[in-house]
């Protein structure tokens, strides 16, 4: 298949999958087969694009001209390739996990759940492969809207409240900040295409440039920069598979992906480094890293702790990008993949604990490692990755981020990374300690259903594998710099 056909497949396979899932709603086994088949086919389509991109090619697909001079179009560059690979690959694992979770907990509206999930993946692919800001914006908003039914899945008052915060903040920031930023970019630059070196260079300067950057950074609410991060903890009312794939991988990574994309392809790292317009950004991102870690430290609810950890880890990516040093941008790119596999493992474990033991608070987890050794073993691997220790993927990305910060002699960033590493250890290590070194309490129970355990072992293995074999993500990250 040609590049254009593969791109079309990446978008249409999950969309068609959603329709088939809806049709198969009455037969759960068939429905789940369709989900798994769709996920597999999507991953194969994304994988089909990889050789071309690694060889330096840029597959393209032009659909139609949405507005005079602005196309709905797709172009696969290294960063988007990596994001699409991570999201589509983890969807397969997450689907296996979902089957175990949704059946194990007897959740209602399962057809709607799987339909929205497939649509969310279609939107994610649209973001990852978008060729310009308008296309990215279209799918960015679509992702917010199709994940809303997943966040409010339980339909009770708590879900309704969480849904309001989720939708209000994500839609609000994107409409009030991001859309004017995109339109202003169009008015200034006359193009919205993602172009290596940026499209704004020399056309706007001073306070206007800084203001525009601020509109983008806070407009991309999915990147959860403080103070627009509150939607993420609010989204934790969703069933755990949603938190795992969407609010640790697809949605939040769409946010930081858009941040990197805007900095690299709209502003241009070199053009931005030549001005002082972005000097405030590392400080805000650094503050978010530290402040979110402190909140995580005090959170007793496991999913809430994980959510704030995600807020903190997302700002690593923003921080590393904002330093504008070549090595740190590589680190930021790698961290999109590294954090994804690690954090999804942690969420999978949290969901497994809930399903097997109905426990949601950290203080209830005494001795759970003895009853659920596989789950908590995988959890420990995820923790290593979050802290940034070998042999886990988080070490590699943190290494590059730190090297970049040193290269740029950005001492604030170095300090933030060092301090947050300690904080990460401080809020994750006690969980592992409790799980394995305290005596278990309450009724005895075993592991969660097999599909869930298999899924979390797979992502834990991937976390380790990315440490030993980071070649593909690294090659893509380097190509981003070269391009």
């Amino acid at each position, binding site marked *: 298949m040609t590049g254009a056909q593969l791109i079309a497949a990446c978008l249409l396979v999950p969309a068609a999958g959603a329709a088939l899932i809806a049709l198969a709603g009455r037969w759960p086994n068939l429905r789940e087969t369709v989900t798994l088949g769709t996920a597999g086919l999507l991953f194969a389509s994304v994988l089909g694009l990889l050789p071309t991109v690694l060889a330096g090619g840029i597959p393209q697909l032009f659909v*139609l*001209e*949405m*507005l*005079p001079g602005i196309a*709905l179009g797709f172009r696969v560059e290294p960063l988007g390739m990596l994001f699409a690979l991570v999201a589509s690959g983890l969807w397969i694992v997450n689907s296996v996990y979902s089957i175990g979770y949704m059946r194990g907990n007897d959740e209602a509206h399962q057809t709607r759940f799987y339909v929205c999930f497939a649509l969310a993946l279609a939107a994610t692919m649209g973001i990852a492969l978008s060729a310009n800001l*308008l296309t990215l*914006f*279209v799918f960015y*908003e*679509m992702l917010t*809207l199709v994940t809303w*039914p997943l966040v*409010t899945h339980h*339909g009770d008052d708590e*879900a*309704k409240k969480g*849904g*309001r915060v989720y*939708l*209000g903040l994500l*839609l*609000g920031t994107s*409409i*009030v900040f991001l*859309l*004017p930023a995109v*339109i*202003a970019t*169009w*008015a200034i630059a006359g193009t919205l295409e993602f172009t290596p070196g940026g499209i704004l260079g020399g056309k706007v300067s001073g306070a206007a440039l800084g203001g525009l950057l601020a509109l983008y950074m806070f407009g991309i609410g999915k990147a959860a920069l403080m103070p627009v991060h509150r939607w993420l903890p609010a989204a934790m009312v969703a069933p755990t598979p949603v938190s795992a794939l969407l609010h640790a991988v697809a949605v939040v990574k769409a946010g930081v992906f858009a941040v990197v994309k805007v900095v690299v392809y709209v502003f241009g790292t070199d053009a931005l480094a030549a001005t002082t317009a972005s000097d405030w950004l590392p400080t805000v991102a650094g503050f978010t890293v530290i402040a979110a870690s402190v909140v995580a430290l005090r959170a007793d609810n496991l999913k809430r702790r994980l959510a704030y950890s995600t807020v903190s880890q997302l700002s690593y990516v923003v921080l590393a990008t904002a330093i504008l040093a070549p090595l740190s941008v590589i680190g930021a790119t790698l961290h999109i993949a590294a954090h994804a596999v690690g954090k999804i493992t942690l969420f999978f474990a949290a969901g497994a604990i809930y399903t097997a033991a109905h426990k949601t608070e950290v203080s209830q987890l005494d001795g759970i490692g003895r009853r659920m050794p596989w789950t908590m073993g995988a959890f420990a691997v995820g923790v290593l990755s979050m802290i940034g220790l070998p042999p886990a993927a988080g070490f590699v990305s943190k290494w590059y981020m730190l090297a970049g910060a040193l290269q740029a002699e950005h001492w604030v960033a170095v300090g933030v990374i060092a301090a947050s590493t300690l904080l990460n250890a401080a809020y994750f290590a006690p969980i592992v300690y409790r799980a394995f070194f305290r005596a278990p309490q309450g009724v005895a129970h075993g592991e969660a259903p097999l599909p869930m355990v298999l899924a979390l072992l797979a992502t834990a293995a991937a976390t380790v594998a990315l440490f030993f074999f980071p070649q593909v993500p690294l090659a893509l990250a380097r190509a981003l710099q070269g391009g």
Partner: protein
Amino acid sequence: MIAEHLPALQVVVPLVAAPLIVLLRHPGLAWALAVAASVFAFGASLGLAAEVARSGVISYAMGSWPPPWGIEYRVDALSSFVLVLVSAIGALVAPYAWRSVAAELPREQHYLYYAVHCLCLAGLLGMTITGDAFNVFVFMEIASLAMYVLIALGRDRRALLASYQYLILGTIGATFYVIGVGLLYLVTGTLNIADMAERLPQVGATRPVLAALAFITVGLSLKLALFPLHLWLPNAYTYAPSAATALLAATATKVSIYVLLRYYFSVFGAGLVVEALPVPEILIGLSIAAIVTASLVALWQADFKRLLAYSSVAQIGYITLGIGLATRDGLTAAVVHLFNHGITKGALFLLVGGIALRAGGVDFKRLQGLGRTMPLTCLGVTLAGLSLIGVPGTAGFISKWYLVLGALEAGYWWLAGLVVLTSLIAVAYVWRFVEAAYLSEPPAGAAGAGEAPLPMLAVSWVLVAACVWFGFDTSFTVEGARRAALLMLGGAP
């Protein structure tokens, strides 16, 4: 032969259909004739639009009396665009009315409804196509009288009061308009709009011309429901029969806006209206007031149809805001939103008609849990609601894009901020529906009513699909609006 006389047939066919329907009386035949006339009008407008795209302006001399002595019908980039919108809505509402009218009106009134539908359509199309200032008034009266009847046919007794309110205010508006035309006739000696535009510069900005501008502005503002002259609108939309509300909301105010544009930019000219007088400032100020207050009032309505009516007042504010900017992008925004809001509100009111039929009303209590019993209807309302907000991938987004772009390019960055901020209020009121339909339990004792009748649902979904289609493929809407904007700023009628 027929192609040559399309401009006349565009109006004459629905106009003649009305008395024929009254003669026929049989509800089924009346309906069939109304559908045939409406569909013909739609076909005619498409033919005219294609001809205008090919050869520019069409001038048709009524009864072969050459203008400026006879009445001229004149189709250009702007009027053909509005003709397509009005006739498309007419052609969709007519088949929809079959089941809706049968459910809402007594059988002996059915033929009346269809006759008035055709009259209303003829009046609105006539206002758009004619190139004669007094002829606009004649068609305005035909359309308005038809609308008073349509509203009064509503089964709620408050419909009578609503119709009466509209009758009073609408008549004042029409009178103001005709006074303005009279003054213009006095100073130019012509009623032909193109001729008038040629002669006005010689008269200059004298007092009668300024008075005419003021009378026409106020008269038309009443008709198009510009804040604070919108008071007739919420009741009229709320209590009219469902099909009538959809027809009125999608077309009536839009045609009045078209006439205003015609006078501002073709007759008086941008030089007088925009540069010499503070009309843009007044329009922008009133538009902001309309957007903010009507959106906030909409948010607190207990009845969904009334909520949508107030939302219409706010959305008209966005259109007049674009006119107030008076730049290429501003006018493009105004014209494109005229169309996009027409199809969006059309879709919403048609779907609401289906809900009213099945649930017995559309207050928020009855909407609870409706996502289960009427899934397709609720999905349609949600999608059209997204277009109302202006979410990308829907028609409303295209309007918002040009409005923000126009404001930014005019240097009004605060106005761009206001446009995006107020669309958050739209998010809030659309989400009231979404939460009621999908996240609430149905009230105890509510029967599982099921979907609306298929013909109604199918027609509604045509418009819902149009809301999405015109969010991606904008070659017709944006191109048409840009041509119209260029035409208006070029000064030539």
